[in-house]
């Protein structure tokens, strides 16, 4: 459990002061993947660096599992940093060290014996899928492989928390997905809490359960990913949701569906956290004598199930269609019939 209370950071430079983080309050559950999203300059990096005090807070508290990080002296802070892993956008590996030696570095810092270090490093190399690259230097690795080294290194001392600052922003989409999958995998296997900073909504959508949206150093909206996706309130949040869902269908598109569908009824299905939606359409088609035609839709998988909407054209007896509607309503999928405006 991580608690952030009234956390602020003010940067004073010669000719201006910047309130990079402004009285943030947050509580993050143990073992979850928590996302923080915001545009450039929102204060995300500053926030995550305040958690392990790479940046000293101006005011406020950071509490990790009953330990008040913000009150520790230098020595204790060093010790607790060994239990807080961190990965970076630009990996920050030591180029003079091989993959093995890079992963061993935090273990050296923690004073782990050489034999134990070797065993642990081999374990980690296996965990992050870098077998065969042990003795390569960072310069000989791809971005994705470098980030795997970064992750292995961050996990070396069995941290309770993993901080990720734009961990996938320097990677191509495919590599991003593989790194995200790795993060989910270690989150499940090791049960550690992950705090993830990003400016890409699809990263949040893919792996986070809860999300906070940052703007101008403040959290403007927060909640479960599904909730934020289905009912975005702030303009920034709406923009981020559009990043992955596209613009919501407007009245005009719906009107268009109806014009081209004089033979049946247009249904709009809404999935919010539905986990069995794939079955529902085939079930309806099997159980009832209706023909289903997919008109348009966009459904995204989130950690809490699918989210999105689907437009169907249902052709059949009105009676049968009503029965089908009743059947669908029994599930968690919401359905409405789109009428002539």
């Amino acid at each position, binding site marked *: 459990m991580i608690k952030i209370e009234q956390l602020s950071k003010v940067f004073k430079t010669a000719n201006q002061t910047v309130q990079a983080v402004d009285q943030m309050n947050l509580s993050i559950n143990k073992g979850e993947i928590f996302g923080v999203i915001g545009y450039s300059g929102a204060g995300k990096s500053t926030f995550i660096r305040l958690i392990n005090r790479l940046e000293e807070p101006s005011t406020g508290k950071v509490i990790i599992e009953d330990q008040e990080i913000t009150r520790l002296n230098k020595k204790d802070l060093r010790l607790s*940093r*060994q239990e807080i892993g961190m990965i970076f956008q630009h990996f*920050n*590996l030591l180029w003079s060290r091989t993959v093995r030696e890079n992963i061993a570095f*935090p273990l050296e*810092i923690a004073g782990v014996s050489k034999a134990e270090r070797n065993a642990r490093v081999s374990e980690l190399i296996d965990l992050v899928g870098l077998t065969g690259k042990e003795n390569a*230097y960072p310069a000989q690795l791809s971005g994705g492989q470098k980030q795997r080294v970064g992750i292995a*290194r961050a996990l070396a001392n069995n941290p309770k928390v993993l901080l990720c600052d734009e961990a996938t922003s320097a990677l191509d989409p495919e590599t991003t997905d593989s790194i995200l999958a790795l993060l989910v995998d270690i989150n499940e296997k090791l049960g550690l809490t992950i705090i993830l900073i990003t400016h890409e909504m699809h990263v949040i959508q893919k792996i986070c359960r809860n999300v906070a949206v940052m703007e101008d150093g403040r959290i403007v909206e927060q909640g479960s990913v599904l909730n934020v996706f289905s009912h975005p309130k702030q303009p920034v949040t709406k923009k981020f949701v559009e990043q992955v869902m596209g613009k919501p269908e407007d009245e005009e598109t719906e009107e268009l569906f109806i014009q081209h569908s004089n033979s049946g009824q247009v249904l709009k299905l809404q999935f919010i956290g539905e986990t069995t939606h794939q079955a529902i359409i085939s079930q309806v088609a099997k159980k009832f004598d209706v023909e289903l035609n997919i008109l348009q839709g966009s459904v995204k998988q989130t950690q809490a199930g699918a989210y999105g909407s689907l437009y169907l054209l249902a052709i059949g007896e009105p009676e049968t269609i009503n029965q089908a509607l009743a059947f669908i309503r029994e599930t968690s999928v919401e359905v409405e019939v789109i009428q002539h405006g």
Partner: protein
Amino acid sequence: MANLFPNVDWFDLIEATGETFYMTIIALAGTLLIGILLGLLLYLSAPGGLWENKYINFITASLVNIFRAIPFVVLILLLIPFTNFLFGTFRGQDAALPALIIGSAPFYGRLVEIALREIDKGVIEAAKAMGAKTSTIIFKVLLKESLPALVSGLTVTAIALIGYTAVAGVIGAGGLGDYAYFYGFARRDFDIVFACTVLIVLLVFLFQFIGDIIANKLDKR
């Protein structure tokens, strides 16, 4: 050979080369030590550094700048009372060492500082995030990551030092400069000056060659 260099005493020449080599190596060792210290001090005490400190930074930077501003010939002359006090004489190879080290350490110190500045800040940050002590960061991150640049810098410094030893020769430090000046130039036996020049050039090539090999070996970027 004997026709080309009628006045060269080969034994003396070899001995002089040995002396130059000796002075260069010992002075280089001292320069390395003091230069690294100066470079670290400059880097760590700079604004935003691990030991940010205006005063230490100002004092170190001033010392470095002052000693780099003094031409080497003048520096030797200035140091004569000091070497006299230390060694009882200002002649000889050992008496030349303080001047050689004081002349080249500030120069190398600046090169060390530049090498350290080249290190990606993110790597230092990563080490901090892992809970590293400052001493760990200095030895395992700063000096290790900048090693190729430190070696290239040392090579450049070594070559400057060979030049300095020749200048020191003129006030009787021994070595090829001494031999060239007192036996060659002073007696108008220019073949000796020429032979010494050739050997100094060879020595420079040798240092450059070895330095390049080591720097390349270390550079894994």
